[in-house]
């Protein structure tokens, strides 16, 4: 496949630029209330990714308790709702 020289140069420049600038990961932590620093600290101890990332706190009143951590397309669900969903699934499988 023949790539145009101009396009090739542009791609190279873009990739070099991308390698130079280190992006800091952005993590969204949702909870039924705004988590305080102590709770964030505890979370950081459990999830190493949070140490290197910028944490953005959000309030979601649909969450009963616990929190949901979103990083890009990945989600870590530590909410009571997910536990209830698991319980629902167990009920469905065993009743």
């Amino acid at each position, binding site marked *: 496949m023949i790539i145009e020289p101009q396009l090739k140069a542009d791609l190279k420049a873009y990739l070099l630029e991308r390698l130079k600038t280190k992006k800091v990961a952005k993590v969204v932590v949702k*909870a*039924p*209330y705004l*988590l305080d620093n102590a*709770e964030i600290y*505890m*979370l950081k101890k*459990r*999830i*190493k*990714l949070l140490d290197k990332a910028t944490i953005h706190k959000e309030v979601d009143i649909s969450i*009963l*308790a*616990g*929190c949901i951590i979103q*990083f890009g397309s*990945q989600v*870590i669900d*530590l*909410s*009571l*709702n997910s536990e*209830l*969903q698991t*319980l*629902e*699934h167990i*009920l*469905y499988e065993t*009743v």
Partner: protein
Amino acid sequence: MENLGIDIKLIVAQMVNFGIFYFVFMKFISAPLFKFLKKKKEEIELRDKLAIDLEHRNAQLEKKDKAMDKERKATLIKAIEESKKEALLVKETMIADAKKEADSLIESAKAQIQAERETMQKGMRKQIAEVGIMIVEKALHDYLTPQARKDITKYIIEHAPKVSL
């Protein structure tokens, strides 16, 4: 001779007449008549012979016809028997096929009923679980105080598994 009333001439003439008559009779009447009679006799004999022959032939034909009739009847009976056997076989085959098809339909219906029952049971189980959890969620939503939410959140975070992404 004349005294006796015998006329020689007359006798001679009569004898000549008789001779002529005899000659004419033998020549022109008797022979064709005999011939005719002989021919008639032959015809009658031939007719008789033909009649006998015809009768004989008739008898033979009748006998042959009877034999053919008997044979035809036997063939017909045989054909009927074979047809009966064939019909019986076809009937049995059809009954067996129908039974097989009916069994298949029954099995299919049973399987369908079982599948529908299972689907219904699954649906009921799903609904029971969903309703149960919905009630619990609603209850928790109303029951949990901010402090309780905080305590539960703290507990969850403390007991969360370590994740290294």
